[in-house]
C-alpha cells in the first residue's frame, strides 16, 4: 500500500488498529471470550470426568476432552456476529465506513482482529481442556494397558486435534462474521449460523437414516466436517479426514465472507 493513499483512505494497519480498539473496549467481548473458555474447559473436564475405563476404555480421550468446543463455538459465533451487526444496530457502521471508505479493507481488518482474539482465547481454552483431561483421565482408569500415554500435546495426533480445534474456532468466527455482514441483523445471523452448525450433527448422529445420506451430510456439514480434526482414533471410519474436514469449514467461511463482502460493497450502509 502506497503512502499517498494514507491520508484519504487509511491503511489496513490503521483499520486493524481501529477495529482492535472497538473490539477491546466493548465489555461483551471479554465476557463472551470468558464464557467460551469456561464452556470449552468446563465441559471438556466434565466429559472426561464421567468416562470410566473398565466400562468404556476404547474412548477417543483426546476428542472427548475437546467436547466443550461444541458449546464454546456458540459464544464465538455470538462475538463475531455482534462485531458486525452491532455496528448496524447502533448506526456506527456509517462512521466506520466514512473513516475507512474501502469497505473490503474494513471487513478484512475486522476479520483479522476477530481471528486473532479468538485464536488467543481458543488456545487458552483448548490448553485448559487438554490439561484437565491429562489430570482427570488417569484417575478414571485410563492408564496401563489401554492408555499407556497420558494426554499430552507432545503427541502428534493430540497436538493436531488441539491446535486444529483452535483453528476451528477461528474459522467459526470468520464464518459468522461473513454471515453477519450479509444479513446485518444479529438475531437473524446468529439463528442462521447456529442452524447451519447444529442441524447436521443433530440429524446424522441418529440412526435410521440412509447411510449414504448420512455420510454426505457429515462430509459437507460445517460442524461435522470441521470437528473431524479432533479425532485421534478410528480415522479410517471418519466420513472425512481431519485436514480435509477443516478445509470444508474454511470453504464455508470463505464463501460467507465473499458473499458478505460483496453485499457490503454493493449495498448502502
Amino acid at each position, binding site marked *: 500500500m502506497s503512502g499517498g493513499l494514507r491520508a484519504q483512505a487509511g491503511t489496513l494497519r490503521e483499520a486493524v488498529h481501529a477495529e482492535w480498539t472497538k473490539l477491546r473496549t466493548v465489555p*461483551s467481548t471479554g465476557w*463472551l471470550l470468558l464464557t467460551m473458555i469456561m464452556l470449552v474447559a468446563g465441559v471438556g473436564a466434565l*466429559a472426561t470426568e*464421567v*468416562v470410566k475405563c473398565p*466400562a*468404556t476404555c*476404547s*474412548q*477417543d480421550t483426546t476428542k*472427548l476432552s475437546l*467436547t466443550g468446543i*461444541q*458449546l464454546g463455538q*456458540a*459464544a464465538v*459465533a*455470538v462475538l463475531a*456476529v*455482534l462485531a458486525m*451487526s452491532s455496528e448496524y*444496530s447502533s448506526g456506527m457502521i456509517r462512521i466506520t465506513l466514512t473513516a475507512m471508505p474501502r469497505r473490503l479493507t474494513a471487513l478484512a481488518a475486522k476479520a483479522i482482529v476477530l481471528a486473532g482474539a479468538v485464536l488467543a482465547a481458543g488456545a487458552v481454552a483448548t490448553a485448559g481442556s487438554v490439561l484437565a483431561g491429562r489430570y482427570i483421565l488417569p484417575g478414571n482408569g485410563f492408564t496401563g494397558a489401554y492408555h499407556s500415554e497420558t494426554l499430552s500435546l507432545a503427541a502428534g495426533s493430540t497436538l493436531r486435534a488441539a491446535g486444529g480445534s483452535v483453528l476451528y474456532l477461528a474459522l467459526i468466527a470468520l464464518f459468522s462474521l461473513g454471515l453477519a455482514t450479509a444479513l446485518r441483523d*444479529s*438475531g*437473524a*445471523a*446468529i*439463528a442462521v449460523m*447456529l*442452524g447451519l452448525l*447444529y*442441524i447436521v*450433527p*443433530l*440429524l446424522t*448422529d*441418529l*440412526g*435410521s*437414516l*440412509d*447411510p*449414504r*445420506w448420512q455420510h454426505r451430510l457429515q462430509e459437507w456439514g460445517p460442524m461435522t466436517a470441521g470437528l473431524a480434526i479432533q479425532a485421534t*482414533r*478410528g480415522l479410517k*471410519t471418519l466420513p472425512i479426514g481431519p485436514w480435509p474436514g477443516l478445509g470444508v469449514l474454511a470453504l464455508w467461511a470463505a464463501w460467507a465472507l465473499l458473499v458478505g463482502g460483496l453485499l457490503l460493497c454493493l449495498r448502502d450502509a
Partner: protein
Amino acid sequence: MSTGTITPYRSGQRPGRDDFAHLLRSEWTKFRTVRGWVIAMIAAAALAVLAVVALAAAASGGQNPAADPAAPANIGPDSPTVAIGPGGEAVTDDFYFVHQSLDGNGSITARVTSLASSMRPGEAPPGETTPRGPQPWAKAGIIIKASTTPGSAYAAVMATPGHGVRMQWNYTGDTAGLPGAVSAASPRWLRLTRSGDTITGYDSADGSHWTQIGTATLAGLPQTVQAGLLVAAPYNLVATENFASNTVTLLPTQATAVFDRVGLSGGHPGATWSAGNVGRAIGQKVKVFSTGKKMTLADSLVRSGGTFRVTGYGGDIAPYVTAEDPLGTVLKATALGLIAVIALGALFITAEYRRGLIRTTFAASPRRGRVLAAKAIVIGVVTFVAGLVGAAVAVPIAERKLHSGGWVSSVYPIWSLTSAHGVQIVVGTAGLLAVAAILALSAGAVLRRSAGAIAAVVVLVIVPLILAVILPQGPGLWVLRLTPAAGFGVQRGIPQYSQVMHVCEPHNGCFPLAPWTGFAVSCAWAAAALGLAVYLLRRRDA
C-alpha cells in the same frame, strides 16, 4: 387518630389500560404488526415441515434390515421369528408350550415352585467371564391361546424372575400380580378361567386365597382353544461401548420351571398333554457364541407323577420391539423451526430494548411481571398454533413416506392424528416449540441482547441432543434427563413396552424419561427462566 374519614382522591375515569386483557391485546398487536416476525413464524413452520418430509423421503428403509424384520431376506437362523398379532402389530410368539384342548368354558390351574433363568453355558460374549444374572422377563406360567399358530390371541398368567406375577394378553396387555420371585418356600399358584371371550387371571400364594389380577377380552376366540403351561427365555441384552458406536449384544438364555398341581377343567376326558414349540421347529439348531458352532438345543418336558419340569431355550411371547425409531429421527428436523422460534421469542423482548420501546411499555403498564406474562402468553400461543398446524401436516406425510420407503407399519405404526400417540407427537411437538419460545423470551429479558439470548437457548435446548450421542451412554442419558432437551421425548414414533427388556440408547432416539415427564422437565426450565426474568425486570432499570 383522626375522627373523620378522609376519602382519598380517585379519578373519575375508569382505569382502562391496565387490565390483563388489554395488556394481552397490546402485546398481540406488537407481534402481529411486525411483518417480518409474522413471515418468519410462517416460514419457520413451513421450513420445519419441508425438512421433516425431505428427511423422511431420505430415510429409506431399504438399506436397513430393521425396517422389515419379517422379510425373508432379513430372517437368519438366529433371528427371532416375527409374527403379526391380533392388533396388527409385529410380535414375537415363540415359546415352549405344553398344552391340551379346552372345549368351551373352563379353567386351568397350576402351581409354580421354581423358576431358574440363566445365560446358556458357554455363551459369554468375547472377553467377558462374569456370568449374567437371570433374565428379568423370563416367563413360566399358564396360558389359554386361540391356537398354536404364531400371532394368535392369548391370555396368560406367569411368574417372572424380576417382575413378580404378571397377567399378559394379546402381546401388548400387561398387569402386575403378586410381587417377588418364585421359590419352593414361596410358590405361586396361578389360575385362568375362560367364560366366552373373557379370560380372568388369578394368583395365590397358598392355593386357597385367590386374588383376581385382571380380565382380558379376546375378541373372536374359537370354541376350542389350547390351554397349558408356557416357558419362554428371552434374550438378555448387554450394552457394550466402542469409541465409534455402542452395540447391544443379545445373549441367549434358558429357563427351567417346575410346575405341579396342574388341573384343567373343561378339557376332553382322557386327553393327554402334548408339548411343542410355537413359532419354531423343535430341535432347531442354534449358534453357540463361544464356539461359533451350531448345536441342537431342544426344549424339554420331564414328567414325574404330577410334576412337570419344563425347560425352554430362547423365545418370548411379547410385542416385537425394535431399537430404531425412524419417525422420531426425522422429526428431529423440527429443530430448524425450533431455532427460528427461539430467535422470535428472544426478539419479542430484545427488540423493545434496542428501540427503547420497553420504556413506553413499562410507562403504560408499570407492573412489569404482568407485561412479561402477557408477552409469554402471546408468543407461546402463536408458536403453539403454528407448531400444531406444521406438525399436523408434517407427521402424516412423513409417516407415509417412511412406509413407502420400506419401514413396515406393523413395527413402525402409522399413527392416526386422533389416536393417543398421534396426539402426543403433534401436540407435544407444538408444546415443545412454545416452551422453547417462552424460554427464549425469558433469556431475552435477562440478557437484553438478542444474539446472546438466542445462542444461550439454542445451546440449552438443541446441543444436549448432540452431546447425549457423543458421551458414553450413562452420562448421555443424564443429559437427556436434566436439560430442556428432555421434552424431545414426546416425538418418539414407536410404542414403548415396559414388559420387554430394552436398552435405551440416545443414538437410536431413545429418551430415558416418559414422554410427558420429559416435557415437564422442559416446562420447568421455562418456568424457572421466566421467574428469573420477572425478578430481574422488577429489580433493574429498563
